[in-house]
C-alpha cells in the first residue's frame, strides 16, 4: 500500500465521474452524483498527496503492463509532486461542493463536467508520471481538456478568443517541453524521470542549461511568466467560475511543478546564471502582474493577473534556491524550495476560493464589473466573510497563510549576503525589493478588490438586488477553513514539506527550520524567528481585549445610540464613492509608462460653437503591450512565411501530378543509391 494506491483510486473516481457526468448530468440527480464522485476522487488525491510528502518516492511502476502511445505507462508518486497532488485533491473537493449549485443541469453542463473530470485525471497523471512519454501525453491531454473546459459557452466571441489563446500558448509551450525532454533523455539514455534524475550529472553542462531554459520557457507558458502570460487574462474571465478556479488553482501550478521538476530533479543547471535568470523572470513577472491587476475592472481578469503575480513570486523563490545551490548553501536551497512549495499550496487555496466567490457574485448580480457592484456585504454576508478570508490570505496579511509563506520567501531572499558574491547579493536584494513592491501593491490591489464590490453602497440596481439564496457556500467555505488551518498549522505543514524536500535534495532541515514545536526559522538560527501559531492565537486574543475593556469599564451613564458622524450629509449617493478605476488612479499615473493608456475625451462644447456644456465622454484603455509588440509581430512573421509557402498549394491539378512524379523519381533514385 503506497500513496500510489490512493492516486489510482482518485483516477478511477474521476474517470467514473467523467463518464457519469457525460451521460447523466442533464438531470439534477446525475449532476449531484457526478460531483459526489469527483469529491471522493479529490479526497483520495489529497490523502495520497499528503502521504507521499512523508513517504518519499515510490518506485516507478507500470500498472498491469499498460501502454500509451510510444511506450509503457510509467507512474511514480514523488514527494516533490506530493504538495501539488494534495492541492489538486483539495481544489477538486471544493469545486465538487460548489458545482451543483453553480451549474444548471443541461447538455452543456454534462459535456463540461466530463471535460473537467478528464482534466483532473490528466493533471493527476502529470503529477504521477514516472516516465517522459506518460508525462507528455498527460500534459497534452490536460491542455486539451482545459481547452474544452473554457469553451463552456462557445457561441460568444470572447470565449472563443480566450480559449484559442490558451490552446495556442499551451501548444507553443508543449513544443519547448518536448524539446527539453528529448535533450535530456537522449543525453542520459533513460526515459523514466527517476532515471534521468539519477543520471543528471552525466549530461554536459551546456546541454543541461539548454534543457533547463527550454523547460523554463515551455512551462513558463503554462505558469504565466511574463511575457508568456497573455492567455491568462483572456481565458479566465470567459470560463465558468469553477473552471477559472481550476485553471488558476491547479493548471498554473502544474507549470510551476514543471519548472521545479527540471530545476531540482531532472536538470539542475550548473553555474549561477540560470538561477539568476529564473529569479529575474519571477521578480519581473510578479511586479508586472500586480501592476496590470490594478488597472482591471473585471473581477476575474483582476484575479488572473494576481495569479501571474503569485506565480512570479514562487518562481523567484525557486530561482533564488538555485542560486544558493550554485554557491553550495544547501540549507538555503532546501529552505527556499520549501517556501516556494508552501506558497504553491497557499495560493492554490485562496485563489480558488476567490474565483469561486467571483462566480457567486457573478450569478447573484449578473455582472463581473467591479464598478457595477457595491455593498454586497449586506446582501451576501456569508460569501463576503469567506471572500474576506481569501483576500486576507492573498494580500499576505497576518495571521493567514499568505503571510507565512511570503515571510519565508522574504527571509530566504534576505540571506543573499551569505553567497559571498557582491553582484549576486545585490541582485538577490533587488529581487527582494521587487517582491516588496509587489507585496505592497498586492495589499492595495486587494483592498480595492474586496472593498469596491463588497463594501460601501450598491452602485447599480443589480447589486442592490443581489441575494445569497441558492448560492454555493460549502465549497468556498471549505477552502477558507483550509486557509486558516494552513496558517495556524503551518509548523506541521512545514515539517511535512521538510520531509518531502529531503527526498528531493538530500538536505535535512529539521531543527534548522523548526527549532521548537511551533517556531519557524529560516534555515539559520541567528537570523529571524516567527511562530505562525502563536501569532494567530495572539491576534485573536488581542481582538478580545477591547471587548473585555468595554465589559469591565462599561459607562454607568445612560448611553444613546446615534448614527455615525458623516459630516451632516443628509443623503449619500452611490456615485459619491470611489470607483474601481479612481481608487487605482495613483498607481496608474505613477506607472504610466507601463500602461501607456490611450485616452480620449470628448466634450460637447468641442463641436458646439456656443460652448454649451453637457456630458463629457472619457475613455481610457490600457495598451496591451505584449500582444501588440511581441505576439502580433511574431504572428505576422509566421503569416509571411506561410504566404511564401502558399504557392506550393496552388490548386492546379497538373502541378500536383508533377509533385507525384517528382517524388516517384526521388524514391527511385534513393532506392538505387
Amino acid at each position: 500500500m503506497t500513496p500510489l494506491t490512493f492516486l489510482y483510486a482518485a483516477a478511477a473516481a474521476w474517470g467514473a465521474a467523467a463518464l457519469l457526468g457525460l451521460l447523466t448530468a442533464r438531470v439534477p440527480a446525475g449532476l449531484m452524483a457526478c460531483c459526489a464522485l469527483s469529491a471522493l476522487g479529490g479526497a483520495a488525491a489529497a490523502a495520497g498527496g499528503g502521504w507521499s510528502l512523508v513517504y518519499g518516492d515510490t518506485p516507478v511502476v507500470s500498472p498491469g503492463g499498460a501502454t500509451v502511445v510510444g511506450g509503457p505507462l510509467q507512474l511514480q508518486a514523488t514527494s516533490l509532486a506530493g504538495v501539488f497532488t494534495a492541492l489538486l485533491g483539495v481544489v477538486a473537493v471544493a469545486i465538487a461542493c460548489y458545482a451543483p449549485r453553480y451549474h444548471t443541469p443541461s447538455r452543456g453542463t454534462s459535456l463540461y463536467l466530463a471535460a473537467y473530470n478528464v482534466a483532473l485525471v490528466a493533471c493527476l497523471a502529470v503529477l504521477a508520471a514516472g516516465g517522459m512519454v506518460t508525462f507528455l501525453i498527460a500534459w497534452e491531454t490536460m491542455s486539451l481538456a482545459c481547452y474544452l473546459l473554457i469553451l463552456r459557452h462557445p457561441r460568444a466571441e470572447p470565449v472563443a478568443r480566450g480559449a484559442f489563446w490558451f490552446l495556442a500558448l499551451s501548444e507553443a509551450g508543449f513544443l519547448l517541453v518536448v524539446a527539453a525532454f528529448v535533450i535530456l533523455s537522449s543525453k542520459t539514455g533513460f526515459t523514466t524521470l527517476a532515471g534521468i534524475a539519477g543520471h543528471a550529472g552525466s549530461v554536459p553542462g551546456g546541454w543541461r542549461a539548454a534543457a533547463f531554459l527550454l523547460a523554463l520557457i515551455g512551462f513558463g507558458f503554462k505558469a504565466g511568466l511574463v511575457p508568456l502570460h497573455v492567455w491568462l487574462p483572456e481565458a479566465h474571465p470567459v470560463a465558468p467560475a469553477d473552471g477559472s478556479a481550476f485553471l488558476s488553482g491547479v493548471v498554473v501550478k502544474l507549470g510551476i511543478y514543471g519548472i521545479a521538476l527540471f530545476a531540482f530533479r531532472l536538470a539542475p543547471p550548473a553555474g549561477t546564471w540560470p538561477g539568476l535568470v529564473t529569479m529575474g523572470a519571477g521578480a519581473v513577472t510578479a511586479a508586472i502582474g500586480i501592476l496590470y491587476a490594478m488597472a482591471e475592472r473585471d473581477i476575474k481578469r483582476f484575479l488572473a493577473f494576481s495569479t501571474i503575480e503569485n506565480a512570479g513570486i514562487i518562481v523567484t523563490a525557486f530561482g533564488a534556491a538555485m542560486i544558493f545551490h550554485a554557491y553550495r548553501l544547501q540549507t538555503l536551497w532546501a529552505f527556499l524550495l520549501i517556501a516556494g512549495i508552501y506558497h504553491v499550496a497557499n495560493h492554490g487555496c485562496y485563489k480558488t476560493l476567490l474565483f469561486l466567490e467571483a462566480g457567486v457574485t457573478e450569478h447573484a448580480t449578473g455582472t463581473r464589473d467591479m464598478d457595477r457592484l457595491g455593498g454586497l456585504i449586506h446582501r451576501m454576508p456569508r460569501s463576503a466573510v469567506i471572500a474576506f478570508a481569501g483576500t486576507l490570505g492573498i494580500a499576505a496579511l497576518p495571521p493567514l497563510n499568505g503571510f507565512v509563506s511570503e515571510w519565508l520567501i522574504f527571509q530566504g531572499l534576505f540571506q543573499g549576503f551569505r553567497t559571498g558574491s557582491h553582484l549576486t547579493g545585490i541582485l538577490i536584494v533587488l529581487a527582494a525589493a521587487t517582491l516588496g513592491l509587489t507585496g505592497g501593491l498586492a495589499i492595495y490591489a486587494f483592498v480595492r478588490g474586496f472593498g469596491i464590490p463588497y463594501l460601501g453602497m450598491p452602485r447599480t440596481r443589480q447589486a442592490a438586488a443581489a441575494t445569497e439564496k441558492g448560492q454555493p457556500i460549502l465549497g468556498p467555505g471549505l477552502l477558507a477553513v483550509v486557509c486558516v488551518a494552513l496558517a495556524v498549522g503551518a509548523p506541521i505543514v512545514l515539517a511535512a514539506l521538510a520531509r518531502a524536500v529531503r527526498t528531493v535534495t538530500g538536505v535535512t532541515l529539521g531543527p534548522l527550520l523548526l527549532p521548537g514545536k511551533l517556531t519557524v526559522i529560516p534555515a539559520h538560527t541567528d537570523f529571524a524567528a516567527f511562530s505562525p501559531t502563536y501569532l494567530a492565537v495572539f491576534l485573536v486574543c488581542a481582538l478580545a481585549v477591547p471587548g473585555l475593556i468595554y465589559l469591565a469599564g462599561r459607562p454607568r451613564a445612560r448611553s444613546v445610540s446615534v448614527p455615525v458622524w458623516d459630516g451632516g450629509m443628509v443623503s449619500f449617493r452611490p456615485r459619491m464613492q470611489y470607483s474601481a478605476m479612481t481608487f487605482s488612479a495613483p498607481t496608474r499615473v505613477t506607472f504610466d509608462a507601463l500602461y501607456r493608456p490611450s485616452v480620449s475625451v470628448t466634450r460637447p462644447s468641442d463641436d458646439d460653437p456656443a460652448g454649451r456644456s453637457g456630458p463629457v465622454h472619457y475613455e481610457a484603455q490600457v495598451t496591451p503591450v505584449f500582444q501588440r509588440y511581441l505576439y502580433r509581430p511574431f504572428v505576422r512573421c509566421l503569416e509571411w512565411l506561410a504566404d511564401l509557402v502558399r504557392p506550393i498549394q496552388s490548386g492546379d491539378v497538373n502541378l500536383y501530378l508533377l509533385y507525384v512524379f517528382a517524388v516517384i523519381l526521388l524514391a527511385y533514385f534513393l532506392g538505387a543509391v
Partner: protein
Amino acid sequence: MTPEELRETVARQFGRSLHIRTLDTGSCAVCEQEIRLLAAPHYDLHRLGFFFTPAPRHADLLLVTGPMIRAFAAAASKTYEAMPGPKVVVATGACALGGVYPSDPFTHGTVDAVLPVDVWIPGCPPSPLALLQGLGVAVGRLAERVRDLPFTAPDHPERTRGDS
C-alpha cells in the same frame, strides 16, 4: 435640567477646558468673522481654555449662528446628536435669536426651532468681547448681567467690568 443645574454641571465637568464646534445655519458670515477673531492674538481664546474643533464627537459646545434655514435643519440636528453629552448649545447673532428673518419662508427664523438652546448671545454681529462673555456664562465662570439691565435711560447702570 434647570439652567442653574446646567451651569453647575458644566462648571464641574468641563473644568477649565472646552471644545467648541461652530455651526453656520445660513448666516451672512460676519458672526463667523467675529468668532474667528476670537482665536487671534488680541482676544486669544486659548488662554481661557477654549478650543475650536471641527468634529462634533469631540465638541462640548455648539456655537450656532444664522437663522436656521430649512435646508440645513437636518444637518444641524445630526450635528447636535453626534455630540456626546454633556453638551451646551449657544445661539449667537440676531439671526439666530429670531430677528432679521423672522418670517422668511426658507428659514425657521430662530435656532430654537430645531435645537435646544442653552445660552443666547445677542449682537449683530456680537463683538468678540460679547462672545467671550457669552462663553464664560455658558461654562458658569461669568455671571449673567443682562437680567439686571433695564435698557431704560437715564438711570441704566454704568458700564461695569465683567466678573471673573
